[in-house]
């Protein structure tokens, strides 16, 4: 028993030291965001600001239209969540629960598309959307959200395969069609999986940089990521403002993480469960 507890203590100490290391960058960000420019340039750097300049946040918020950026980002995230939850579960139901000719073929195509690096389709997709005169609008960012994502479809299909067939067979005998079974039986049973996809989709849309960078050029349509990037151009090396801006953009994700941690972890478990 003695040996065991010595080992546990060692692991505990390693993990404690490591978690300090993992948290320090976040602390550094917050501390820097509250410092004066003089203090940031000071050597050696301070871990706790000598004076707390909370007004840095007010200045940052006033220096760029962060309210507008946040609104835009939230709107795109809402579309992403709605689209990925509804459409991916709809498609996954088809792959998991309906027998049709060519299913095996299409499913292997689906798996193959996961191997295509996004950058291969990026340029021709841009050409396509520019020919449709949609560059400069949100459509190129929203439409793909409603056409399914191979990874989520795959994840949900595995999950749906594990739902006992008897449940839907019973409904079928009562004359229910697939739409009904999907909406009334499968969806309620897959709430945790769908919640996991919802948080991932939200996080993905919130952090998306490439999409808005490519398709959005009017400042009125800027998202937080693009707004923050262009904010750098206007404040240059005023790192207290840049760090305050970064905190503003990252804080909602951190809050979301603590609120829905269960679903973040659920999503990773689903991912792990699809292997092997």
């Amino acid at each position, binding site marked *: 028993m003695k040996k065991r507890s010595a080992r546990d203590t060692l*692991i505990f100490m*390693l993990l404690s030291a*490591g*978690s300090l290391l*993992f948290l320090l*960058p*976040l602390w*550094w*960000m917050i501390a820097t965001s509250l410092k004066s420019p003089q203090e940031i*340039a*000071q*050597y*050696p*750097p301070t871990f706790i600001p000598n004076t707390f300049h909370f007004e840095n946040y007010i200045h940052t918020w006033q220096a760029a239209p962060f309210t507008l950026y946040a609104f835009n980002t939230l709107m795109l995230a809402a579309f992403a969540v709605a689209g990925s939850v509804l459409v991916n579960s*709809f*498609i996954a139901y*088809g*792959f998991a629960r*309906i*027998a*049709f000719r060519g*299913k095996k073929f299409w499913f292997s195509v689906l798996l193959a*598309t996961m*191997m*295509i*690096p996004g950058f*291969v*389709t*990026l*340029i*021709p*997709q*841009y050409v*396509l959307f520019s020919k449709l005169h949609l560059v400069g609008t949100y459509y190129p960012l929203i*439409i793909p959200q409603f*056409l399914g994502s*191979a990874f989520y479809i795959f994840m949900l299909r595995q999950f749906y395969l594990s739902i006992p067939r008897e449940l839907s*067979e019973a409904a079928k005998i009562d004359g229910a069609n697939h*739409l009904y079974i999907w909406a009334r039986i499968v969806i309620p049973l897959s709430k945790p999986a769908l919640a996991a996809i919802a948080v991932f989709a939200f*996080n993905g849309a919130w*952090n998306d*940089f*490439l999409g808005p960078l*490519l398709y959005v050029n009017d400042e009125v349509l800027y998202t937080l990521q693009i707004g*923050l990037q262009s904010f750098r151009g206007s404040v240059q090396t005023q*790192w207290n403002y840049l*760090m305050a*801006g*970064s905190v503003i*953009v*990252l804080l909602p994700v*951190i809050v979301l993480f*603590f609120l829905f*941690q269960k679903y973040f*972890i659920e999503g*990773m478990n689903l991912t*792990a*469960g699809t*292997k*092997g």
Partner: protein
Amino acid sequence: MKTPARTLTPTAPKKKRSKLARREELQGYLFISPWLIGLFGITLFPMLFSLYGSFTNYDVTSRMDFIGVGNYMRMFTEDPLFWKSLYNTLYYVAFMVPLTTIGSILLALMLNERIVGMRFFRTIYYLPAVLSGVGVYFLWIQLLNPSTGLINTMLGWVGIPGPAWLSDPMWTKPAIILMKMWSVGGGMLLYLASLQGVPSQLYESAKLDGASAFRRFFHITLPMISPVIFFDVVTSFIGGFQIFQEGYVMTDSGSGGPMGSLLFYNLYMWNQAFQLFDMGYAMAMAWVLFVIVLILTLINLRMSKRWVYYEGGED
């Protein structure tokens, strides 16, 4: 898999059965139709277009003349930046994939122990993995500041003079890899889930046979989690080749950093496509990338047969 329609009406007349089956078939295609539209509309058709476009001097607006393998020739024989960007990307992938894989396995092993505060630790280690985007890059530019940044301050405590990181061409890519190590928590969770699935009888009987912890790890744990390792390696491999934003944001809007040391493949392709509007060339670059990733993934798959263990046989 049998069609439910068949199981319901095993003795029904043939005509009726096929009608039901056809309805079933139609519904199947209805359900997967959004994905089919996407597959053809925003994946396959654009890819075919770009395959043709890669043999032209396309510039989106005016010209699209067939120039044969001109783009490919130019890439391989007279464009040093192509090779540079490919080198930068391979360098990044070659170090990032093994380091993050080993890092997340080690972390998962420690976090799989029954120790006080484990839930808290898991949360802390996972948190950075959900953070990404411009905010994180700005934070790391600050952390990597040669004189007043956190990293070099801490290195200074143990007597190591830290490098100039993002301004020293030797150290820019290690800096990015270091930043990636901060988010090993995502992979950690993946391994944790799979470690928890290893039956404890295996360890118990090995212990009875006198197997050391070392042997138990290499002969039980590793084989049992090898499918997840394989999945993680393949996905971070493909993901690694996508690296773009780090190079774009952490250098001045895509300049590629000191001596082009952060000019990653996709960043160079992006500049060709959207700054110079040399779309034909960029599309050719995209196809070369696709072929490289495809070949490397196939090698991965082939090699996996040697080291990935599937309980209950392969599927």
